[in-house]
C-alpha cells in the first residue's frame, strides 16, 4: 500500500484519511477544506469524495436513495470480497441491517432494534457498567500509573454490549480483537478483514443454533422470535444484526471515552474544573462528543446528484465527515475550543437522518459512567509520556494508548 502513503500535497484533490499527522490532529485540514473545497476528493484507498461542512452533511444524509448505505465503510472491500458480498446479498438480503439497508427495507430493522436502546432500556445496564468501571480502576489504582485507553476505555464497551446481547462478557478482550480486525486493522488489511469477519459470523451462527434450541432472556433470543413484515428472520440476517451490534459500539465508544481521558490528562484546567463542578458532566460529555467525534460514515452514489459545485456519479463513494461538521464555524461559536459548559451544541457525532446511531443512548450512558467513576476515583492525573500516545484513524478515530500517572490520596 506504499503508493497510498505518499505525503499529501493537496488535501482538496488528494486527501488521505490515514495520513499520520492528520490522524493525530485533523482540525487544521478540516478548516482548510471547509473554507477552500468543502467537498474534497481523493483517488487513494479506492477513491472517494469527502464532505466537511455541517450544512452539506445535513443535505447529503437526506439524499436517499441517491446515496445508498449498502456500503457504509469508508474504505471499499477489495474486488474479490466485494463480489462475494454481493453474491451473499442476493441470497439473503442486506448484510448488516439497519446500517447497510436503504428504504424501505431499513425502517423495520431499525424499529426492531431501537426498543433495546431507549434511554430507559440502557439505564438497566448502568449498575453493571459502574461495577465494571470500579473493577478496572481497582486493578491500576495502587500502581499510580496505567493506560487510560488500554486498561480502561477499551475494556468497557465490549463487556457492556456482550451483557446486553447475552454473550459472555468474560470474552471482552476477544470481542475487541475481532472488532479491531474488521473495523481498524481490516481497513488497510483485507485478509484481516476477511479473517475476523468469518470469526464473528461463525461465532453468532453457532450461538443462534444454540438459542433456537434453548431460548434465553436475551437480545439474540428476542431477535430469533421477532418478525419483520410478518416473517421471521433467517439466521444469516440475525447474525448480521448481531455482528453490527457487537462491532458498532466497541471501537466507537472506546474512542470517545479514550479521547475524553486524553483531553483531561493533557488539559489540567479543564480537568480541575470538571472535578470541582460535576454538574458540568452533561454538557462536558456532549462537548467531548462534538470535539472528538470518532466516526465517519460513507455512502455509495447510485444516481447522479449535485452537492455544492460538485457533480457525483453513480459508483462514487461519498465520505460523510461528521467530525469535521462538528467544528464548522458557521454553526458553532469558538469551534476549535473545548468549552465544557457549551449550552448550544447541535453536534452530529451520532450522524443524522434515518441512520442516526441506534446506540447513542447506550454510548452516552457508558461515557457518563466511565468518566464519572474515573473522576471520582482518580481526580488528579496527567500524561506520563505524551510521545507514547498513539491514535487510530479512518472510519473510527481515537487514541489507542494513553499512558497516565496519578497520585491518589
Amino acid at each position, binding site marked *: 500500500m506504499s503508493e497510498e502513503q505518499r505525503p499529501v500535497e493537496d488535501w482538496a484533490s488528494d486527501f488521505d484519511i490515514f495520513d499520520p499527522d492528520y490522524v493525530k490532529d485533523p482540525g487544521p485540514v478540516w478548516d482548510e477544506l471547509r473554507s477552500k473545497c468543502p467537498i474534497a476528493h481523493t483517488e487513494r484507498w479506492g477513491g472517494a469524495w469527502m464532505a466537511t461542512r455541517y450544512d452539506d452533511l445535513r443535505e447529503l444524509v437526506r439524499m436517499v436513495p441517491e446515496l445508498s448505505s449498502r456500503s457504509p465503510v469508508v474504505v471499499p472491500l477489495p474486488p474479490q470480497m466485494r463480489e462475494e458480498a454481493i453474491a451473499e446479498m442476493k441470497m439473503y438480503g442486506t448484510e448488516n441491517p439497519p446500517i447497510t439497508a436503504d428504504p424501505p427495507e431499513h425502517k423495520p430493522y*431499525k*424499529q426492531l432494534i*431501537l*426498543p433495546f*436502546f*431507549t*434511554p430507559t432500556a440502557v439505564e438497566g445496564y448502568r449498575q453493571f457498567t459502574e461495577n465494571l468501571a470500579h473493577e478496572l480502576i481497582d486493578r491500576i489504582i495502587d500502581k499510580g500509573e496505567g493506560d487510560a485507553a488500554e486498561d480502561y476505555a477499551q475494556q468497557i464497551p465490549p463487556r457492556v454490549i456482550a451483557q446486553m446481547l447475552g454473550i459472555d462478557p468474560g470474552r471482552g478482550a476477544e470481542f475487541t480483537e475481532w472488532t479491531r480486525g474488521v473495523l481498524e486493522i481490516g481497513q488497510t488489511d483485507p485478509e484481516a478483514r476477511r479473517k475476523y469477519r468469518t470469526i464473528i459470523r461463525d461465532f453468532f451462527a453457532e450461538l443462534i443454533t444454540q438459542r433456537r434450541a434453548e431460548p434465553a432472556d436475551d437480545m439474540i433470543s428476542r431477535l430469533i422470535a421477532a418478525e419483520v413484515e410478518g416473517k421471521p428472520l433467517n439466521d444469516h440476517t440475525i447474525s448480521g444484526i448481531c455482528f453490527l451490534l457487537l462491532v458498532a459500539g466497541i471501537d466507537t465508544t472506546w474512542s470517545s471515552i479514550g479521547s475524553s481521558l486524553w483531553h483531561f490528562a493533557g488539559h489540567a484546567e479543564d480537568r480541575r474544573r470538571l472535578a470541582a463542578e460535576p454538574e458540568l458532566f*452533561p454538557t462536558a460529555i*456532549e462537548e467531548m462528543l462534538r470535539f472528538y467525534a470518532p466516526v465517519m460514515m460513507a455512502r455509495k452514489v447510485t444516481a447522479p446528484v449535485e452537492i455544492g459545485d460538485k457533480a457525483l456519479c453513480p459508483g462514487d463513494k461519498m465520505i460523510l465527515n461528521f467530525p469535521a461538521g462538528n467544528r464548522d464555524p458557521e454553526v458553532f461559536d469558538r469551534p476549535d475550543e473545548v468549552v465544557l459548559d457549551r*449550552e*448550544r*451544541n*447541535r*453536534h*452530529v457525532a*451520532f450522524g*443524522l*437522518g*434515518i441512520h*442516526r446511531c441506534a446506540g*447513542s*443512548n447506550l454510548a452516552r450512558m457508558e461515557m457518563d459512567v466511565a468518566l464519572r467513576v474515573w473522576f471520582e476515583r482518580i481526580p488528579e492525573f496527567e500524561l506520563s509520556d505524551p510521545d507514547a500516545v498513539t491514535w487510530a484513524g479512518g472510519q473510527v478515530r481515537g487514541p489507542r494508548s494513553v499512558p497516565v500517572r496519578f497520585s491518589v490520596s
Partner: protein
Amino acid sequence: MKIRVIEDNCQGHNRCKAIAPDLFDLDEIGNASAANDGVVPPGQEEMARLAVENCPEFAIEIIEE
C-alpha cells in the same frame, strides 16, 4: 409558550428529553413528542429554547412565544 416536535424530522436523538424532561415524551422507539400538548409551563421557557437549539435534526419548533 408552545412547542411542537416535527414528527418527520425527529430521529430520536433524545437531546430534548435529556435537557427538558418535563417538556417531552418518548415513544417505544425513542422518538419524541411535546408533552402537555406542547404547552410550556411558566419558568421553563429557557429549557424549551435549549432543547430546540440542541436538537441535531432541527425537529423542534416554537409555535407560540
